[in-house]
């Protein structure tokens, strides 16, 4: 059973974030990048199926610029068998539906029985690409998955609901599973894995290789357009207490006493 993992390279959360000159996105100049955290769990879920002998091959796919190859290399070092990198300058500024169409086109003919992805990406937080891909392929998709169990011809998943409840769903294969963090404990790449990854294939493809019309992608075709990125309003804003730990502690006790009556 061939298994695909959709991954994205995103800025590390402790990167120095600045808004770009146009005020429409972050300035990418100073950022450092890594594999999206959710995707580490998606990869681990696929690798566990391979460890059990249920998955024959685990393939990682990413759509992104040159630097995204580093994230794919991380997947290979962690245990993925091969990788597909969709890279084309004309993809810059694409909206999620265009990216989903690109992914669907890139895997045409591959016959993946299972596709794992992270619930969302840590940059745009869109929470939609895995299910968009599923719909384009005519497959079911479950999001926020906390547990997945492969059955004969189907997969049983537990989805996270509000207020500590879970929804159990059984999906006919082929299917798409978007995992929540905490579904497993992702492994790290071993030294041996890093060495082995050097011999593994990253196949780089462009729009013409996968038969996608450049007019359908990129910023020009995007119908989901970020017109402004800004720092969040401070809201009412907290009163910030200053002083030594003991001084602020005393001031906090006073505020709590005045405002809540719990002390």
């Amino acid at each position: 059973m061939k298994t695909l993992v959709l991954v994205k390279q995103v800025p590390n959360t402790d990167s120095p974030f600045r808004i770009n000159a146009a005020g429409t996105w972050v300035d990418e100049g100073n950022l450092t990048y890594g594999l999206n955290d959710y995707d580490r769990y998606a990869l681990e879920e696929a690798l566990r199926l391979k460890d059990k002998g249920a998955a024959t091959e685990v393939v990682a796919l990413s759509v992104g610029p040159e630097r995204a190859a580093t994230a794919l290399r991380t997947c290979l070092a962690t245990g993925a068998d091969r990788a597909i990198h969709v890279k084309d300058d004309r993809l810059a500024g694409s909206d999620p539906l265009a990216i989903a169409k690109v992914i669907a086109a890139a895997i045409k003919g591959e016959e993946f029985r299972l596709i794992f992805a992270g619930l969302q990406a840590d940059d745009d937080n869109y929470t939609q690409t895995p299910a968009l891909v599923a719909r384009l392929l005519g497959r079911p998709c479950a999001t926020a998955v906390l547990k997945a169990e492969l059955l004969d011809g189907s997969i049983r998943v537990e989805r996270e609901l509000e207020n500590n409840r879970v929804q159990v769903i059984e999906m006919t294969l082929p299917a798409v599973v978007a995992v929540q963090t905490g579904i497993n404990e992702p492994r790290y790449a071993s030294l041996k894995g890093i060495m082995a990854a050097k011999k593994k294939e990253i196949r780089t493809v462009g729009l013409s290789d996968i038969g996608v019309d450049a007019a359908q992608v990129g910023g020009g075709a995007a119908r989901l357009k970020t017109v402004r990125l800004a720092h969040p309003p401070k809201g009412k804003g907290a009163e910030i207490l200053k002083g030594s730990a003991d001084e602020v502690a005393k001031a906090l006790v006073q505020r709590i006493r005045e405002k809540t009556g719990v002390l």
Partner: protein
Amino acid sequence: MSCKVLVVAEQDGGAVRDITWELLGLAHKVAREAGWGEGSVKALLLGQNLDTAAKGLAERGAAEAIVADSPALANYSCDGSAAVIEAQAQAESPALVLLGHTPNGWDVAPHVAAGLDAPLATECSAVTAPGGKPRFTRKAFNGKFVQEIEVGDAPMSIATVQRGASQAFSGSTQGTVRKVDPGIDPAKLQARFVEVRKGESGGLDLTQAAIIVSGGRGLGAAEKFSIIRDLAQALGGQVGASRPVTDSGWLPHEHQIGSSGVTVAPKLYVACGISGAIQHLVGMRGSGFIVAINKDADAPIFGVADVGVVGDLFEIVPALTKAVQEARK
């Protein structure tokens, strides 16, 4: 009147969920702004045995409640729900389809978007439509930034809206109810509902707690949580946590507060080492008095807190515990 805003209602056992009344409130606000008229807001309700819920929607916000009532829709399935929403959105061709950013809302919305080739803005905190052009506001980079989105000349756009983004609709309407054939064959569904059950729980109920002290990623390790427990004990409160804490197994899932955990509204909420990702904020911003302790002065948690301390929680939290104990003497 033609439909301009289609609200996808959510119900639980036949009772309309709060998020739906908020969506109806938002839909009316957007319709007013855009000059679409109050009669342009319709609701779509999916499920089984929905007569009471449908009547409620028609009386509280929907000019028409479109009802797909069928045993095949008794429980949520992504492909079953998506097929009905797609078909009705196609028939009504509204400018805007609104869903709640709930586990089922965010699960189904992309299917509908891909099926209708429409742009989807997720987890919106505000939706406006000046001059009839939808504009969506949401958080990006886990709350570090606010993002505003436009959809160009797309004739229809779809949005999932977070809880609390709008007041619930408070007026009354004399809407009508119309039943539609969902046309779903349960045997052909690719995603089949099995059950909903409680997650693993030790019986903790944070929703009823008057005082909660929560720890986040800033604690760094499970054993460091003792300072949070000590403060909670001194205050006579319960221990809460943000997602990274329960993901890392430092505390069981039942302690998690936020969109994927529980929603709480204690009199006092103390957030320690929690940056304040939107997923956490939606679960605790209704608290009476919020204290935030964090080393990052720009952390979003200070935006919702009443009082904050920027500094090392390993110094401040134990000092606060001591001060509380002295105050209690």
